[in-house]
């Protein structure tokens, strides 16, 4: 049970916060943060316990069970999600009232927002602790759904709605692909339970197709090329969302999946090479975009794409530093996002070109965010230093080309981070009146994060144990990861120094190359993935509209679209069935003459209806058909049917006549004139339907089953005390049919009365 405790606590946070919010809106955030911290405590406590796996029955029909695990990866990611979640919720307490006021929404919506953030946190905790492929997908889509609601939280804002939809569709679609891969694996190994899957995968490696599907899901979540473009758009969300989902939670989920499923990817070198390429491309693309982007949240978004590109490279290389990288990046990025939000709230500005010199107005924030920026750009004495150290360590093994790419990437990171921080806080003091001080709760989370970044940088030993545990879980072998400062000329250090130099150089000369770079990137965006996506969507929309324009609108065509395919299908079926004895012509004896005559009369009347000029004549001809058929039935020795059909026809003719009397004369005339020019396709449809009806009934009548139930009813009629067998069948043997039939009549009657209700005219007046 202790294993479940943190999960249950995390799940309880959102409802508890909601309840607290009902009592007093401000209490929700505190309640939520408290819950998150309690869950964190439980998580730590759980590490001292024996249990590492819990299994509950769930859906035995599919052999599914709820499986939870406690291992290095789950511990690392869950604590990350819980800590940053708690801080972000507290931050939102200070951020949201202002934001809601700007959006002109009731302050009570704050509780809803915090509830969603906490629900997201719970989904994240669930995602990292489950140990089953299917559950993994369920949790993954839970994060997708909640992120949709969070990104689109400002629903009055069209941009934010569009961003939410984009992220939903993109991450939703890629996660369905992930699911297809998971399903393939589940079927291949006969189980969805991850330990068993890994065990069986060791014998027979997973198929490349399945792995590619899994990877697509992960890439979509982690905003990697070519699915990256949802992330910059998602910056339309309120800042707490970005700082949580887009630094430490949702985007981390993708890379987490790859780490969790690493044993499957380990043997598949092709797939890993593909991931490697994507990682480097995302890294380069993200960094370059971050260098020129103007809104500061966008800078951070592109930076996130780039940073997860690093993490992807690490996973693709199978480096044991991969989990550490994500964990070290998360607090830095979250802190910077929170800073960006605080700056926007204080100054009301969102772009780098509009702010500057804020270090005077917001000294604490400036200091704390400087530490975070240092962490992001991997300067010593911050936890970020080690993320680059493991990165360079992994690259150094691969050769000079990789090392060069790494130095460039890290250099770009330093350059854009410097640009961001300097753009916000550096430069001359603004001439405008000093901005008001930020509320303490808006700054405190940044300070806490900065402190933790420093702590990790100064005492790296604290990180070794969790990082090793995570690496062990990921790679399934003991880890030898070391974190310490080495003051010697090893490759990692040289690379780091090179990167700093490059970064500093780039930052110093920024005015020289920025315009050119932004022109180049602007041109490149015309052929980018986002453009492709929009084009695809546009074409689909066009196709959709075009099809809809072409679609059948007319009642006639709606009917024809039922009958013509049926007729064609029927004819095809007749065509493919074996030919032998399909049709019998039958004999016509002298006794049949009357029958044939009546049939001929019916046909003639039916044909005449097509040429009938007036409505009355039409109705009379229709009843002629009916009466001839009644005659047919009489000659065919079915007197009951004949009697009924005579009566029905009579009533029917009179009803028709009654209807005609109701209809305005000029309207009838008008309709009559219109009706008499059938289109060619109507004739064709009639011909197809008729031919098909003829041939199908001919074939059916040619194969009459000799010994039908009918004969049995004749024998039983006496037992039913009814000399008239038809009456016996109707009232006794198949009486239920008759009851049903009569109910149909009553239902029709109800329909008629409601259509022609007596108080219609009164109702009309009321309207």
């Amino acid at each position, binding site marked *: 049970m202790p294993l479940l405790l943190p999960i249950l606590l995390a799940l309880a946070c959102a409802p508890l916060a909601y309840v607290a919010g009902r009592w007093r809106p401000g209490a929700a955030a505190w309640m939520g943060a408290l819950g998150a911290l309690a869950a964190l405590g439980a998580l730590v406590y759980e590490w001292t316990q024996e249990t590492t796996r819990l299994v509950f029955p769930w859906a035995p029909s599919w052999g599914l069970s709820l499986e939870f695990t406690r291992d290095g990866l789950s511990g690392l990611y869950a604590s990350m999600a819980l800590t940053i979640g708690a801080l972000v919720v507290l931050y939102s307490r200070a951020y949201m009232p202002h934001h809601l006021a700007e959006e002109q929404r009731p302050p009570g919506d704050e509780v809803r927002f915090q509830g969603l953030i906490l629900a997201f946190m719970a989904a994240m905790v669930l995602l990292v602790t489950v140990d089953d492929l299917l559950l993994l997908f369920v949790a993954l889509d839970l994060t997708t759904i909640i992120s949709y609601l969070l990104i689109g939280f400002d629903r009055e804002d069209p941009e934010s709605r569009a961003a939410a939809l984009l992220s939903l569709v993109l991450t939703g679609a890629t996660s369905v692909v992930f699911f297809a891969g998971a399903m393939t694996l589940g079927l291949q190994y006969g189980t969805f339970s991850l330990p068993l899957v890994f065990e069986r995968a060791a014998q027979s490696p997973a198929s490349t197709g399945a792995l590619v599907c899994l990877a697509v899901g992960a890439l979509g979540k982690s905003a990697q090329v070519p699915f990256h473009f949802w992330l910059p758009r998602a910056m339309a969300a309120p800042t707490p969302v970005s700082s949580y989902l887009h630094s430490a939670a949702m985007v981390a989920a993708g890379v987490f999946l790859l780490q969790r499923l690493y044993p499957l990817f380990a043997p598949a070198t092709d797939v890993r090479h593909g991931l490697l390429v994507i990682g480097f491309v995302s890294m380069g693309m993200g960094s370059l975009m971050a260098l020129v982007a103007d809104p500061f949240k966008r800078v951070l978004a592109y930076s996130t794409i780039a940073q997860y590109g690093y993490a992807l490279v690490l996973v693709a290389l199978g480096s044991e530093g991969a989990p550490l990288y994500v964990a070290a990046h998360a607090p830095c990025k979250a802190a910077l996002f929170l800073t960006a939000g605080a700056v926007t709230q204080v100054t009301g500005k969102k772009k780098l070109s509009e702010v500057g010199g804020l270090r005077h107005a917001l000294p604490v924030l400036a200091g704390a965010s400087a530490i975070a920026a240092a962490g992001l750009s991997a300067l010593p004495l911050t936890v970020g230093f080690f993320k680059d150290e493991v990165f360079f360590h992994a690259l150094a093994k691969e050769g000079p080309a990789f090392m060069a790419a790494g130095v460039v990437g890290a250099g770009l990171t330093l350059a854009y981070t410097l640009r961001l921080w300097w753009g916000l806080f550096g430069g001359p003091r603004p001439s405008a009146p000093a901005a008001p001080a930020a509320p303490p709760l808006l700054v405190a989370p940044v300070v806490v994060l900065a402190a933790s970044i420093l702590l990790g940088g100064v005492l790296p030993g604290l990180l070794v144990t969790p990082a090793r545990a995570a690496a062990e879980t990921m790679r399934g072998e003991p880890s030898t990861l070391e974190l310490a400062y080495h003051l010697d000329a090893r490759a990692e250090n040289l690379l780091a120094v090179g990167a700093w130099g490059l970064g500093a150089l780039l930052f110093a000369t920024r005015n020289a190359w920025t315009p050119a770079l932004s022109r180049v990137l602007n041109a490149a965006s015309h052929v980018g993935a986002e453009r492709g996506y929009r084009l695809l969507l546009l074409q689909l929309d066009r196709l959709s509209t075009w099809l809809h324009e072409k679609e059948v609108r007319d009642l006639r065509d709606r009917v024809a679209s039922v009958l013509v395919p*049926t007729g064609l299908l029927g004819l095809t079926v007749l065509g493919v069935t074996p030919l032998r004895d399909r049709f019998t012509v039958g004999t016509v004896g002298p006794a049949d003459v009357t029958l044939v005559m009546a049939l001929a009369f019916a046909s003639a009347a039916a044909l005449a209806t097509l040429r009938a000029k007036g409505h009355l004549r039409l109705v009379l001809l229709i009843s002629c058909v009916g009466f001839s058929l009644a005659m047919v039935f009489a000659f065919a020795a079915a007197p009951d049917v004949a009697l009924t059909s005579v009566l029905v026809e009579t009533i029917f003719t009179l009803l028709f006549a009654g209807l005609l009397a109701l209809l305005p004369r000029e309207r009838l005339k008008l309709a009559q004139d219109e009706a008499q020019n059938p289109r060619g396709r109507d004739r064709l449809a009639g011909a197809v339907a008729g031919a098909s009806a003829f041939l199908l009934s001919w074939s*059916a009548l040619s*194969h009459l089953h000799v010994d039908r139930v009918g004969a049995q009813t004749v024998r039983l009629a006496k037992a039913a005390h009814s000399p008239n067998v038809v009456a016996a069948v109707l009232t006794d043997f198949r009486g*239920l049919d008759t009851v049903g039939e009569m109910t149909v009549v009553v239902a029709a009657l109800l329909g008629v009365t409601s259509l022609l209700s007596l108080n219609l005219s009164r109702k009309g007046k009321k309207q």
Partner: protein
Amino acid sequence: MPLWGPLLLPWVLGAVLAFLDGRRAWVAWLAIAGLAGTLVCTVLLLPQAWSAQAPQFVTGDWPVGVGIRLRADQLSIVFALVSTSVVLGTLVYEHVAGGITSRSFPALVVFMGAGLTGVFFTSDAFNFYVFFELAMTAAFGLASYGEKPRNLRAAFTFVVVNLMGSSLFLTAVVMLYLTTGTLDMLSIIAWGQAGPPFALLVPGTLLLCAFGVKLGFFPFHFWAPAVYRDAGPTVAALLAGALANIGSYGLLRFGVDVMPQVLAQARPLLEVLGAASILYGSILALSRRDTREVLAYASISQAGLIITALSLEGREGLCAAVALALAGSVDKTALFLAQDRGGERARRAYSVAAFSTAGVPPTAGFWSKAWLLRAALEQGHTPLAGLVVLASTLSLLALFRAYQRERWLREGAALHRGTGAVVYALSLALIVAGFWPEPLLRAGRDAIQGLGTLP
């Protein structure tokens, strides 16, 4: 609970309601109570249906074939349960939403419920036709509910097109009788096992087309968008949520149970039609602005999924078809009812049902789509798996475009306590089935257990 219980109750109730003015509140409550009673009776039948011998009776205790056999196996029961619940929910919704405006509405809804129950319980081809007509006639009467010109237009299209479907169905049943000499389904099964393999192909084709009209898949669907758009929201919910079940149930019953040999022949055809419906429905839904039209096209794509599932060999595909039909029925009802209202609550319910339709967990729809995907992959049918993925994505896009429409954010009467309860109950059912899928999976698995001659 004897088998006739859930059959008799709505029948008698309908007859009584026919006298009464349905606009009075107590009449509506009587109808609601009766349908709820039917639901309870059906639930009470569950253990028997799951026992070794499915409950059955023959009318008048005549020999089978002479008398009509009614039988409730697992397939019948699960469809009856879901359909009755959906009908009940819709009736409650209409009543609490602002009062029923037509005298005969409750009676017709109850008759429709009776017809549906009968269709699911009967084991006689012609009796199936009679109950089918009962449900259809009630629906014909209901289709014009509201009586605005657009409602009448929808009703007229619906009646004429479905009359064609009904006459196809009648013809097919008669051909079955002429060819096999019996109307009892189990006897037809026995005949089919011994008889020539091609003998039932013609009636089978006609049945496919007739159910195609009810279910609304390509190319028999052209009536659906217009009718679902122009009929009143409750009526659209009834037609799409409950009545379409006749189509899927009929395909399962006649295709899998009664004429498996025909189904085996029809697989390639079903596959093509299914793929066409999926693509057609998903793509057309994209550019529609009217939410109900979006839903109509989404339901066409859903119907495509069902018949694609039927086209797969092996049991898994059939299970998937059952699950898709059941989940789809609740989805559609919830969607049509929720889109009728504005405000936050309605949007919330809509989003749950939309996620279910798109197959996003944790919802019932996810499991049904997952099942289809599983069946497709198990058969090594990768293109179909790709199609399912594509359909999910496109319907997600279409449904949530509708969700975000400007109009919806501002206008419309909000769900109040009563209507909200109905819509929330449906959505909640979807979510509960998402988190605890065992009942749905069991239903899907067991429903096809007793059918015909499965491999």
